[in-house]
């Protein structure tokens, strides 16, 4: 165990970051959904993107996947500009609302996206089992529960074992047992070398991440490990740490005002 941990840390230092976001600004309608944000995401770890609803998590994620029009700044993924055609089979993306075909069965959805990606046919089966949906494989998606549907969407993102997996609030509304299992799966994927970026507006999920990106109002509040974040802010949970950082940032403003 000890050697494995050491090896992983060493690899993290050697390998370049999978995602590099630099001075990113994204204007959506009237709001600056992402407002001058820089961050990086390393391979082999689960990075949590946490922040309240509307703070710009989905927008940042869309920028990383390359489906968002950027106002300024750059996003690089695996050394290429985000959205580059060479990245299209190396990045797995789960949108916030499950994006699968409601009128197809679970297996048909996976087979279709598998053919688009050009992965072997047995890959669909492997991904179904990874999200524990083998039992409902022949069920039409709109007959499934919300949690099952979002797992179908997750299974699609696992096809072809992408090097970067980007998941927008994949655990919202799921049964705690299932949520625990999914987080275990994210860590297994990271152990296998993938970079995993998971967003959530539920601060409790922070404990399950190797690294945290805390976001508020389109800006990055902190980029740290959960342990270091708590130590630095002298707090006992991430929600308190979040408050401490926000209040600390506001104090000088009030003085100058």
């Amino acid at each position, binding site marked *: 165990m000890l050697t494995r941990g050491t090896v992983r840390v060493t690899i993290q230092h050697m390998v370049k970051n999978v995602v590099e976001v630099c001075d990113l600004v994204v204007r959506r309608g009237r709001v600056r959904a992402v407002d001058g944000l820089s961050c990086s995401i390393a391979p082999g770890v689960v990075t949590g993107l946490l922040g309240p609803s509307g703070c710009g998590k989905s927008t940042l994620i869309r920028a990383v996947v390359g489906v968002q029009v950027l106002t300024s700044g750059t996003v690089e993924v695996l050394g290429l500009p985000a*959205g580059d055609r060479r990245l299209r089979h190396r990045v797995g993306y789960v949108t916030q*609302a499950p994006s699968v075909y409601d*009128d197809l069965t679970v297996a*048909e959805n996976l087979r*279709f996206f598998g053919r688009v990606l*050009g992965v072997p046919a047995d890959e669909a089966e492997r991904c179904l089992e990874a999200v524990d949906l083998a039992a409902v494989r022949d069920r*039409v998606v709109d007959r499934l529960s919300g949690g099952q549907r979002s797992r179908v969407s997750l299974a699609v993102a696992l096809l072809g074992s992408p090097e970067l997996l980007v998941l927008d609030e994949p655990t919202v509304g799921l049964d705690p047992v299932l949520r625990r299992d999914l987080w275990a799966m994210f860590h297994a994927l990271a152990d296998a070398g993938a970079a995993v970026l998971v967003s959530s507006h539920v601060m409790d999920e922070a404990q399950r991440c190797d690294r945290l990106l805390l976001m508020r109002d389109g800006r990055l509040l902190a980029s740290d490990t959960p342990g270091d974040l708590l130590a630095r802010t002298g707090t006992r949970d991430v929600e308190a740490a979040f408050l401490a950082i926000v209040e600390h940032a506001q104090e000088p403003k009030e003085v100058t005002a």
Partner: protein
Amino acid sequence: MSPRITLAVAARVLTQLRRDRRTLAMLLVLPCLVLALLWWMFDAGGAPLAGGFDALGPPLLALIPFIVMFLVTSVTTLRERSSGTLERLLAMPTGKGDVLVGYALAFGAVATVQSALAVLLCWAVLGLAVSGPVWMLVVVAVADAVLGTALGLFVSAFARTEFQAVQFMPALVIPQILLCGLFLPRDAMPGVLGAISDVLPLSFAVDAMSGVSTAGGGAGLGGVAGSVWGDLAVVVAFVLAGLLLGAATLRRRTA
């Protein structure tokens, strides 16, 4: 674009349609019912009215696949845009052409069955007079259907809801129906309307269909009058233009 992905998209659209039994039944049966109704109105009661079914049948054979495929495609692709599956597909190695041609192939296949049934009914059961080759009626009908698909793909980009998508029917389709020569011969229209009619795709579709049944066995290719091939070529050109416009509305990156 890759054949693997294009065919995967087409197969998937067909699987979705097969799941939706009611829509499939309506796609195949309704055109036949409408044509039978038309025949009943004009030809069943003794002496046929002026022109009658022989004059109105061909334009309707051209209109119905166009309208049906326009509606089905605009709603289906709107759903694909709003459900996020299009975003996901375009984040994968899918080309825009794969999506467009995949849809066109799938709906073209449905249109082939639909048109073959409608033509068979008109010609073999309802006694439509067809002086040209009957298979050409099916070819023209399929081209009309794919025209509807191409136009539907394009307009789905400008609708946010299915309600809006359906409103493109009175905006884009009904004027074409009014001006295609079904209600008034195109050369009898006021000058401006005649000129507009001369550049609308459905006018060429209706001309081609009427040409097969009346102008009949010309000296052209396959025993079809040359003017029919000309009209068909224009329809195909509109299909390609529609698909290109549609491609321009498929965006990998959105705001």
